[in-house]
């Protein structure tokens, strides 16, 4: 590849685990596998590893391309690579697909070892805590005792935060981007509408759609359309689409007339073809359930009392799904624990999606923070 700031052509790997994983729900995964990618080189004392936790629809393919012909690189390629803010000349970066995912790790699409059939709807409901436990095992598998940093945005930020509580001795830095210490009622409500769209799709068959040779596309599509509306800000939508008409005039129909509709339908269709509905249900549930302060009577500061990592917390002004106010709650709790924490509130008009955008100031922040991490 000619692009010297790209990690280049990468290939996913798979780690198999035979030690049972106790899940928070009470169920046990007797064996499972995680698909992952790595970029950069692990140094001799294994002190330069950074793990990336993905959000709702993310996966292990974080940077680079799988082949020269790939149209798009990994989902956080603008941040990760040689000379980029998360510099792979310095760091060994690990991306993985979480349990319950649909991109290769054990999940609804993989085979249940007990029955030799596809898990489908029987795959357990997994939580952020379960993911973090499985991620720690992946670090073990790679021979890494302590991560230089754990990094995640949105649902990924929740995982990064939970690492600091579950495995304080195993991370030195936690970067929690566009995230929250739990979901608000409004956020749970959005997730429930998305789930209902899927569950009430006649092609859902209680999650056993694979057996019927169909996919609940309509439900997934609506779930994604709803998601997209909430990830963008009103201003960003207005700027991008406004009231623009696709054919220049109103046609008095229910076809696509506004550009906004065209965009939403495109995003919905694309997603419905790529993503598994059972995974979507599980990812949204993991979001809903995450609430570390529930263990300490709602006291987030007490929930973080075991944390020792240094923190970077970043929020975006136009993000109304994971608003700056929620990040400030987290920062307050970290300050109460006298932890090292920096907090940036980035002026951005892309809403929640801003954390994936290559905004200069945002990337300068990430670059400055990663530069100060000693390896």
């Amino acid at each position, binding site marked *: 590849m000619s692009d010297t700031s790209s990690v280049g052509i990468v290939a996913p790997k798979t780690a198999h685990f035979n030690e049972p994983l106790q899940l928070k729900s009470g169920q046990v995964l007797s064996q499972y596998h995680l698909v992952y990618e790595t970029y950069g080189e692990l140094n001799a004392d294994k002190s330069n590893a950074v793990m990336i936790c993905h959000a709702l629809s993310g996966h292990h393919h974080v940077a680079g391309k799988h082949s020269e012909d790939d149209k798009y690189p990994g989902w956080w390629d603008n941040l990760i690579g040689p000379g980029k803010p998360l510099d792979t000349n310095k760091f060994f970066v690990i991306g993985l697909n979480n349990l319950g995912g649909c991109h290769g790790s054990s999940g609804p699409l993989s085979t249940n070892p007990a029955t030799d059939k596809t898990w489908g709807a029987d795959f357990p409901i997994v939580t952020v805590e379960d993911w973090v436990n499985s991620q720690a095992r992946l670090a073990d598998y790679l021979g890494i005792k302590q991560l230089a940093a754990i990094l995640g945005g949105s649902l990924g930020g929740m995982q990064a935060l939970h690492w600091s509580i579950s495995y304080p001795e195993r991370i030195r830095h936690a970067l929690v981007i566009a995230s929250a210490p739990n979901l608000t009622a409004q956020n749970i409500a959005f997730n429930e509408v998305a789930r209902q769209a899927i569950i009430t799709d006649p092609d859902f068959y209680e999650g056993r759609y694979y057996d019927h040779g169909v996919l609940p596309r309509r439900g997934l599509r609506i779930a994604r359309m709803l998601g997209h509306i909430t990830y963008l800000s009103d201003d960003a939508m207005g700027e991008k689409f406004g009231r623009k008409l696709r054919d220049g005039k109103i046609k008095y129909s229910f076809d696509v007339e506004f550009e906004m509709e065209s965009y939403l339908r495109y995003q919905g269709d694309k997603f419905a073809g790529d993503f598994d509905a059972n995974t979507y249900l599980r990812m949204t549930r993991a979001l809903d359930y995450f609430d570390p302060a529930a263990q300490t009577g709602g006291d987030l500061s007490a929930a973080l009392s075991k944390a020792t990592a240094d923190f970077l917390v970043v929020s975006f002004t136009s993000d109304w799904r994971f608003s700056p106010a929620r990040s*400030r709650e987290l*920062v*307050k709790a970290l300050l109460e624990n*006298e932890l*090292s924490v920096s*907090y940036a509130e980035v002026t951005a008009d892309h809403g929640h999606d801003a954390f994936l955008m290559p905004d200069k100031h945002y990337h300068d922040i990430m670059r*400055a923070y990663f530069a100060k991490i000693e390896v």
Partner: protein
Amino acid sequence: MGNLEKNIAINAENRADFDRIANWISPNAKVLDLGCGDGSLLTQLRKTHKIHGYGVEKDDSNWLKAMNNGVDVIQMDLESGLSGFEAQSFDVVILSQTLQAVLNTEAIIHEMLRVGREAIVTFPNFGYWRHRKQLMVGQMPVSKNLPYQWYDTPNVHLCTIKDFDEFCRKGNIVIEERLVLTDKEEVHFMPNLMGSLAMYRLRSK
């Protein structure tokens, strides 16, 4: 002067008040610096006093400079208060040469005394004779400590030492110590006239 020169001028003067501020800080203190700029005060205090400090800074580019200087920095607007900080959670809260640019002056001083056991406030003395002289001639004062023209100044609440003394008295704020400087030297004779920079160490009654 361009803005760059102004900033350099202010920073140079800051260093004078930095040394004096340092004299008021106990070793290992927990310090909050409001409007921390590039974080140089905290960096200095960490070296000399092994303090545990955080900076608060609104401006993006200053925030980045502070981060690059290794300071823990929280981005927020002082005008919205210090609700992100617990009561009495800091030994000292510092507001260095920023008071005059704050809109909610009264609120911020009381917030500082809520969050900190002590507050250190420094500001340019508007009653300094050079300022008075310029007013006598009929113009708004422009000086080393007030390097702005009336139309481009961020300073909205300029005051004199006498004004601030009275403000503290009315607000039930105890002045533990007051220091007045001109050209880095302490001024004891007619400070409200002869002093260009005022420094206060405050606590609640």
